[in-house]
């Protein structure tokens, strides 16, 4: 199957008068239609920058993008702003973390959805409004007809998030990019949005790239998980494999240090140190300074992606050489109280 998203050798640098930040340092992946990729990482890992690169939303003046990105047949890296505007909303759409800032406060929800449809598909306003109503019902907003005339500030957080999803899906994109859309929501609302997104993804057959720092959310949503650290994927594989038998020391450390992994009263198993300085990354493996398995070789050579299985890859010299195996007890078993 031809992948609907294809990324080769992606590198992104931001230049400011003070320093140059290497946010993304070599990302390659391919996403097939109808599949969900979860990019899991902490702040500073480069996950949001990667996502924005896919839709060409990086600040033009200060960012340098290398590599090739192809989405739904369009080569994003080579397109002009005008060409990108044609593709955004139609082939590829994005939902954000904070719906209040992503929705325009001076227009009603109905107007915002209809505007997108009219602009991209050229149908009449009446038709666009009818489609908007259908969309609001699809995202399960109660009293959809009334809500068409509501302004964003009149709606609750969960409803705004649903409205933003409706705007994003209005032109049936092939690819949906989600930038931590549930992080700002309450727990009971978050799970509603997660279930909704999964349903919609199945119904519309969209490919989704979902960025999050929350392991639980990634588990619920993604078919495949890519764990990101210091601008690179350190481990990629099917969700079950990565969560239940992680291969990379960082993944294992991350899973072990989540509160779920500890018995009450004991200390948590932490990854020592702090995430790296993206203005001056150490040579070799970026995780080596914090890795308990690190050897001299790890600090000098950048580990390439090594295939542990046909669908499971890891960036670690020692794992590739078969010298270590990070067998952590499965979180899934521990999660049942």
């Amino acid at each position, binding site marked *: 199957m031809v992948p609907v998203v294809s990324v080769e050798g992606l590198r992104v640098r931001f230049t400011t008068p003070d320093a140059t930040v290497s946010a993304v340092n070599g990302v390659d992946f391919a996403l097939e239609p109808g599949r969900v990729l979860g990019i899991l990482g902490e702040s500073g890992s480069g996950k949001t920058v990667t996502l924005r690169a896919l839709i060409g939303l990086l600040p033009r003046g200060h960012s340098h993008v290398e590599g090739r990105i192809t989405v739904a047949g369009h080569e994003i890296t080579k397109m002009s702003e005008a060409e990108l505007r044609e593709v955004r909303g139609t082939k590829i759409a994005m939902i954000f973390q904070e719906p209040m800032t992503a929705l325009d406060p001076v227009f009603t929800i109905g107007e915002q959805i209809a505007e997108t449809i009219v602009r991209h598909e050229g149908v009449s306003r009446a038709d666009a409004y009818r489609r908007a109503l259908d969309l609001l019902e699809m995202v399960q907003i109660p009293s959809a007809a009334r809500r068409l005339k509501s302004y964003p500030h009149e709606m609750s957080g969960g409803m705004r998030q649903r409205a933003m999803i409706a705007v994003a899906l209005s032109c049936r994109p092939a690819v949906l990019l989600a930038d931590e859309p549930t992080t700002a929501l309450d727990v009971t609302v978050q799970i509603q949005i997660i279930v909704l997104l999964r349903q919609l993804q199945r119904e519309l057959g969209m490919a989704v790239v979902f960025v999050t720092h929350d392991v639980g959310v990634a588990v619920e949503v993604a078919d495949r998980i890519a764990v990101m650290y210091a601008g690179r994927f350190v481990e990629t594989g099917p969700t079950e494999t990565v969560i239940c038998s992680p291969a990379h020391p960082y993944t294992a450390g991350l899973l072990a240090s989540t509160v779920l992994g500890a018995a009450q009263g004991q200390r948590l198993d932490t990854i020592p140190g702090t995430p790296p300085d*993206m203005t001056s990354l150490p040579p070799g493996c970026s995780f080596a300074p914090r890795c308990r398995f690190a050897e001299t070789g790890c600090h000098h050579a950048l580990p390439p992606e090594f295939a542990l299985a046909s669908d499971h890859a890891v960036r670690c010299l020692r794992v590739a050489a078969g010298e270590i195996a990070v067998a952590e007890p499965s979180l899934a078993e521990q999660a049942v109280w």
Partner: protein
Amino acid sequence: MTDTPAIAIAEPVEALRRAQQGKSYWKRVWERLRRDKVTLAMAAILIALLTMVIFAPWFTAHDPYQGSVLRRLKPIGFPGHWLGTDEVGRDLWSRMVYGGRLSLLAGVMPVFLALLVGGFLGILAGYAGGLVNSAIMRLADVLYAFPSILLAIAITGILGAGLRNTILALTIAFVPPLVRISEAVTTQARHLDFVEAARASGAGTMRILQYHILSNVLGPILVYATSLISIGIILAAGLSFLGLGVTPPNAEWGLMLNNLRQALWVDPVICALPGVMIFITSMCFNLLSDGLRQAMDVRL
């Protein structure tokens, strides 16, 4: 395990913070100012102007009060008077330089005084809230309702012309806007988490103002005051032009503009010269305050 300081910090944003180690807020502002060429140029012009004005005798050859009936309204380039002479024969260049003293004084001093009075009242109103706030703000509103030039005219009209009354009038005109801005930033600062944390430590009003409020509000107030200077210079010149400000035979740009009106048909360029000085000075202060505001918007 504890943070090992040797290992550096997170995020692209954090990485930039790391690149600016050991710097207090004002040091960072200074660094940003240094890189802003426009602001530096403005500051240079103003410093040059100030130097010339203060050390006027060194920069001028003639007595600004000494006129000569024979040499009235001589054009630019006239031997001995490189900018020409005014309507009673006084050297225009000397008049401009000495005039700068009064013009600048009349423009800057009121802002400085209003900053003291208005700043104090505004911070008090902002921090106290409630009735005190209402009382002070409504009082300021009453004065604020008058356009500043009219208010200044009214006050000097009552008190009479002269430098002292001009400064007083302009000070009164500038107090309300400074009260407003001080109150606004203080109210904002009062609600910040670290002020709440300071209250939670059991600190009293004085300590909180001293350690937490003042350092955070003085910046924006200062920027606003700097922008008022540019207005002050224009207003002071305007008052003198109308005969309500500095009195003859003193040199002052606004006054000179009025007196040189007679030369409009003889030599229009000379007429415009004091106006050009007012314009340059006012604009320099304006751009300086803009640059200051931008430099202070250090939001890392």
